[in-house]
């Protein structure tokens, strides 16, 4: 065992000892307790105009406590692991649980901690020491290269104002008074560049912005050339954009944008959202009766995969410490399952899918590991020539302004391209695509074989929707 690994093993034991101290207090008070620890180190390097504009480095640790008092939960968190501060946090959690115990209780709602055993992961696909093998100067050079290479791609790139290279190394530990001891470490290297393309002068001056990002767990392979080429090409391609005519159009949604949209609606597949009546798929009172409903066209296939190759959200256990597994959510357009944690599986009488999701500062929720919308067999080009006139959406902006989570209605600021008879005619901007998630998924005609890059825990193909409203000139 290396000195670093010994140090890390000691750290886990140290945290476990702190938990055991709280567990003893909880036992005296007759309550159950869980502690979720998040520790992390991050480095962020932002470059502008050839200079290191910002160097951010952080070391954080936070302990999230969850106390179960008579079947109800109370939460607290603290960034200090000094004994006195941990004890104060324990008392805060207990106070929170007492607050939560007000009001009527429903037997089915009574909460229990997940009962499990130890899960410890040293999965090298999630955690490695590659960031230690690159010097700080080399990392700063990478951030500078993001700007320099983007700018060199095209003379119309007037400015590359946002460039960032960052790394994280973190770990999650879960301890509970029912025997769970879980630990997972992970590293990540991320970055982005945003290019501002300009053309014209005076009243005809025009500026368009586009960016590209990357995520990898291997600091020795950072795709600077690909990212800068893509960002610059996207920004330049937007120059000369005009507003399209108002009307209804067949729409192709770019795979990266599609991944953003499915990220917005991931919560619709949550058993917690079903219980709280915040999913559009909760039409029936009997939770299980909502399964089997048609939520999209027959080409729609969605699954949650905690072991996706290169997946950002890969995890061996969920936030309660339960071992994870793959779950089919939608098959041929039909809803097959909701994602659940142990609490909502019990409360709704649904299968437990081990999708507990929780940050140390928040309460227990449900969330996907990697939400994967499966691709088809056709190319993006085939989708674009499916109709005589197609709008290809390359950007949606302002989801929090234009998306109504409760109803699924959206009205989103957009940029893209107008395609006619399989040929790109012109870039378009200043338009709004409007519809609803229900309309979009049921109107899904084709999906491409191409999938979005794994820069988030949602992966999707390009989508061809038969018709959506477009507000333009």
């Amino acid at each position, binding site marked *: 065992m290396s000195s670093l690994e010994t140090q890390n093993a000691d750290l886990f034991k140290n945290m476990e000892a702190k938990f055991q101290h709280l567990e003893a207090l909880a036992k005296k008070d007759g309550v159950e307790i869980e502690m979720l620890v998040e520790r992390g180190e991050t480095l962020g390097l932002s470059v*502008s*105009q050839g200079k290191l504009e*910002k*160097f*951010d*480095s*952080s*070391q*954080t*640790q936070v302990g999230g406590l969850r106390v179960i008092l008579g079947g*109800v939960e*109370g939460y607290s*968190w*603290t960034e*200090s692991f000094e004994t006195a501060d941990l004890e104060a946090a324990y008392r805060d*959690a207990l*106070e*929170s*649980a007492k*607050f*939560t*115990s*007000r*009001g*009527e209780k429903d037997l089915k709602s009574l909460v229990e901690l997940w009962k499990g055993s130890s899960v410890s992961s040293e999965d090298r696909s999630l955690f490695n020491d590659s960031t230690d093998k690159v010097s700080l100067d080399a990392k700063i050079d990478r951030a500078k290269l993001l700007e320099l290479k983007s700018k060199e791609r095209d003379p119309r790139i007037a*400015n590359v*104002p946002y460039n960032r290279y960052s790394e994280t190394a973190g770990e999650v530990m879960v301890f509970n008074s029912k025997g769970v001891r879980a630990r997972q470490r992970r590293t990540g290297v991320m970055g982005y560049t945003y290019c*501002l393309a300009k053309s014209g002068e005076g009243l005809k001056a025009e*500026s368009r912005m586009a960016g590209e990002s990357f995520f990898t767990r291997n600091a020795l392979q950072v795709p600077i050339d690909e990212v800068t080429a893509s960002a610059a090409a996207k920004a330049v391609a937007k120059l000369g954009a005009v507003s399209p*005519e*108002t*009307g209804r*159009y*067949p729409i192709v949604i770019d795979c990266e944008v599609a991944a953003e949209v499915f990220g917005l609606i991931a919560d619709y597949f949550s058993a917690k959202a079903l219980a*709280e*009546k*915040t999913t*559009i798929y909760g039409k029936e009172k009997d939770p299980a009766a909502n399964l089997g409903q048609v939520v999209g066209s027959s080409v729609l296939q969605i699954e949650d995969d905690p072991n996706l190759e290169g997946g950002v959200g890969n995890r061996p256990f969920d936030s309660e410490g339960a071992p994870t597994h793959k779950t089919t959510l939608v098959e041929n357009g039909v809803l097959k399952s909701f994602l659940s944690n142990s609490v909502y599986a019990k409360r709704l009488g649904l299968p437990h899918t081990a999708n507990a999701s929780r940050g140390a*500062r928040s*309460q227990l929720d449900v969330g996907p590991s990697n939400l994967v919308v499966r691709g088809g067999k056709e190319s993006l080009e085939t989708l674009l020539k499916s*109709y*005589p*006139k197609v709008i290809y959406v390359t950007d949606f*902006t*302002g989801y*929090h302004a*234009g998306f*109504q989570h*409760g*109803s*699924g209605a959206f*009205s989103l*600021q957009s940029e893209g391209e107008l395609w006619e008879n399989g040929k790109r005619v012109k870039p378009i901007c*200043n338009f*709004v695509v*409007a519809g609803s998630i229900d309309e979009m998924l049921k109107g899904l005609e084709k999906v491409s074989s191409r999938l979005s890059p794994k820069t988030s825990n949602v992966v999707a193909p390009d989508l061809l929707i038969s*018709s959506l*409203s477009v*507000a333009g*000139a």
Partner: protein
Amino acid sequence: MLSQGLVKKVLDAALERGAQFAEVFVEDTYQSELRLIDSRPSNAVIGRLKGAGVRVFYGHEQVYVTTNDLSEAGLLKAARTAAAAKPAPGAGVTRVEPKAFQPQSFDQIHHYLTKPWEYDSGRKFQHLVTMDKAARARSGMVSQVEPFLLEKCQRILVANSDGVWAEDERNYVRAGCNVSLEDKGSRESQHTRAGQLGTSEWFDTVDFQKLATDAVDRAALLIHADFAPAGEFPVVIDNGFGGVIFHEACGHGLETTSVAKDASVFCGKQDQKIAEACVTAVDDGTISNAWGSLVVDDEGMATKKTVLIENGVLKSYIVDDMGARQTSFARTGSGRRQSYKYAPASRMRNTFIAAGTTKLEDMIRDIDYGIYAKEMGGGSVSPGTGDYNFGVTEGWLIKNGKLEKPVKGATLIGRGIETLGRITKVGTELRLQDGMCGSVSGSIPTTVGQPAILVSKILVGGRAAASTGGAK
């Protein structure tokens, strides 16, 4: 929070490789969040944030290091990490000596009384129940009610190598109610929010019933409403949260965070006419107990009132310390951050368009066909291009000078500088509304506001009826 001797040691360590400036920001924050769902307490979380950030400047380069470890060893490690971001200085580099601290005292312009832990939790529960019951009693279509209370007490210390030593306490209280209605297969969700820079006794002044029923009434109005039409129309944006249009369309573009890197459409336009003469806009951190107010900013400067646009002419940007060094504009007491985890940046405080002379009903009367945006939702902007968007949460169709019917699903989009030039009338009744603003230094409380304004043309993203290009 920390002794001057310890902070001096930390600044010395941060300056050891030739930085021109060093700063320490320390924070100790208590925050509480309480919610009901399904008429039962669903969420009670108490959190304690405690940490420090060390910032150094090498010319226009900024290094920021944060730590949870407030021991001397932890703080010195953070300072040395910040210093080590630059190579060891060569011969001839002059080391900056920190100036002696001059602890500042500020006029306390805000009233604070009862801390979150001093206010009876049973009364908090009753406030939540009041909202829940009021919402459910208002309409049989209500399917879910989620009332919440938030409280935060943030104590900060900021000290720097220029001799600044400023301590402050900021207290925030907020209440809100999210509601969902369902009827005949249609769903509609709405929310209301109220908050102020203040302490928990403020809850005793809140009309919780109205907070809940306003959300239900708006959802009930819109659940079966038609969608807004699509296209370019004149739009009357009402007061209060309508001010989000100025916040998004212009405010972010006036922050030196964007201006200093030539990534704003407002670069180089100081003292130029950028709006009609009816437009005067202000960013004011000094309003007593207003949600976006401060006493001292997160860089240790007393906050102030800043006139951004006066009678259509751009008068000032929103300037933080680094922005001032980069642009030579004077600082405006606007360096803000969500917490010690973020380096400060130039950010808005209470930002609003000042009252004008036209009555709301007169604006509507002059429109043949357009939209009245009575309540606005959130928005966003790309400062580099000025492209903005924001949602209308309660809209009305105007026909022949009258409000014809409520409409939903409208998003307004445009370019900030163009929209600013299209504000042709400004109303008489200024109203402010609290909101949260997310940007490079995190999510911070900001107030938006305006009287009603008339924008002669904005693209409204509603629903188009006609088919184009072979769509089914």
